[in-house]
């Protein structure tokens, strides 16, 4: 039975979903941007119940406390929140398995970099690039920004109509935004989820294919609406830039925390505790991809962002390639990882292919035990 609880740490009052056996090894599920623990609720009921399964809401998401995100710390506000939270649950003789999804994968990578000896395995599902979202072009492990001020990443890269759809619950509430920034049908949270979070297969959504129920689709959409909006939260503040596309990261809020100016996880390759890593991703993920539909260089290359300077200086960010580069370096340094790619799958293997996801993660954790 999955229940919602709260733990007040010195950092954050953290809401979380909990199921399984409280005396078991911890299995911690960490969500990413514009989502919350609710995206894990169906999975949690199906995972082996001998684990102590918890899914916390990150600050500013779901039902956790709304505190500002100091983006200059990269994703450390989130990883430190997670550490404080887990101190209330960890038992000395029990293992800790971290599962992070998208930007949540970056959070657990940062966690391992800062608290390496407290974790027994790491599952990165559709992980954001170790070099953050937008604004870089390197294919190797040394970060190369497209512009010195990291233009093309940060709070200014979010779609304003999408932000307004979160604000107005897909147009249920009256918009107070200027015309170009108003919610429209294509930008609805529900549409964004069905078209981008999940892969549309045979022109059918997950609901139409019977993979999720209407109640689940509604709960996931509510979870997206729970994202706290503003400069301190999502998407964060924006600096004007003289470099294309003329927006650079600010110092506050979610999208700046995952901007390469502040988020560089390439040092994960040098983590001394060699924790086994499972890298899971959908073959047709359109969010984290070498041709991401949410990344401005790629959209620029297709003509949607005027003035794109060209592939020589502004190629689409090779997100998957960057993750592979860092994990290969981790391997060279004595660590190990395995990559599992789900066919016909988008950004959410744990929902799109729940059964295979559970099988894969069980096999992985069994190898460790």
């Amino acid at each position: 039975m999955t229940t919602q609880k709260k733990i007040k740490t010195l950092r954050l009052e953290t809401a979380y979903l909990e199921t399984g056996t409280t005396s078991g090894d911890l299995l911690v599920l960490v969500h990413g941007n514009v989502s919350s623990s609710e995206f894990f609720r169906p999975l949690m009921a199906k995972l082996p119940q001998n684990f102590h399964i918890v899914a916390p809401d990150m600050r500013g998401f779901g039902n956790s406390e709304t505190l500002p995100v100091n983006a200059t710390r990269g994703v450390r506000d989130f990883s430190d929140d997670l550490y404080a939270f887990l101190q209330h649950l960890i038992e000395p003789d029990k293992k800790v398995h971290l599962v992070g999804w998208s930007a949540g994968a970056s959070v657990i990578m940062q966690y391992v970099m800062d608290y390496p000896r407290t974790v027994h395995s790491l599952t990165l599902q559709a992980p954001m690039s170790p070099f953050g979202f937008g604004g870089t072009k390197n294919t190797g492990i040394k970060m190369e920004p497209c512009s010195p001020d990291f233009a093309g990443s940060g709070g200014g890269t979010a779609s304003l109509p999408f932000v307004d759809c979160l604000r107005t619950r897909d147009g249920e509430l009256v918009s107070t935004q200027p015309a170009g920034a108003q919610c429209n049908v294509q930008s609805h949270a529900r549409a964004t989820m069905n078209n981008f979070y999940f892969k549309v297969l045979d022109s059918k959504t997950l609901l139409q294919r019977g993979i999720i129920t209407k109640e689940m689709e509604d709960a996931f959409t509510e979870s997206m609406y729970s994202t706290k909006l503003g400069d301190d939260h999502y998407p964060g503040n924006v600096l004007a830039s003289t470099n294309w596309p003329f927006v650079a990261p600010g110092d506050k809020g979610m999208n700046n925390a995952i901007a390469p100016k502040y988020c560089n996880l390439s040092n994960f390759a040098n983590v001394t505790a060699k924790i086994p890593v499972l890298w899971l991703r959908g073959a047709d993920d359109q969010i984290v991809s070498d041709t991401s539909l949410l990344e401005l260089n790629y959209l620029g290359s297709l003509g949607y962002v005027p003035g794109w300077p060209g592939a020589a200086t502004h190629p689409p960010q090779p997100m998957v390639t960057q993750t592979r580069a860092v994990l290969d370096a981790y391997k060279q340094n004595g660590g190990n990882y395995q990559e599992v790619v789900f066919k016909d799958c988008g950004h959410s293997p744990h929902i799109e292919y729940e059964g295979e996801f559970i099988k894969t993660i069980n096999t992985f954790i069994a190898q460790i035990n």
Partner: protein
Amino acid sequence: MVLLETTRLKLSYMGTEDAPFMLNLLNTPAYYKYIGDRNVRNIADAENYILNGPVKSYEKNGFGYYVVKLKHDESPVGICGLVKREALENVDIGFAFLPEHEGKGFGFESASALMHWANQTHGLKKIVGITLENNLPSIRLLEKMGLTFDKKMIMEDEELLLYARTF
């Protein structure tokens, strides 16, 4: 000859050497269902189709249908192009992909690049797309490219949806 390159794809002018590929593409179930049977049954038919369709259009309009190929191995995955029809005031954009290459964003990547090329190179201020009402993948792609529903229309005894975008 290559017209355009994108991150993963190139759009090449179509020629009779593409006949085997076109024979295959024009006879997939999706092509029959959403576009129609072009009565292309053998290589000779396909060559005629290419010469009387795309090649003629290149000469007449300066644009037409192009073969979309993967950059890394040159294998053809679909077609994407611009057509000037008698029945329509504006140039319309279209695409078709082999079933095994659907759902990879190739349609969006090729059609988006072509649409902006048409705007910049030919100065087209309005681009339209026509589709059957039940062709949801096509409708979704047109919407993703910024085209919006304009009206229903009848063409060759078929009811079609007209989508449009102005620049």
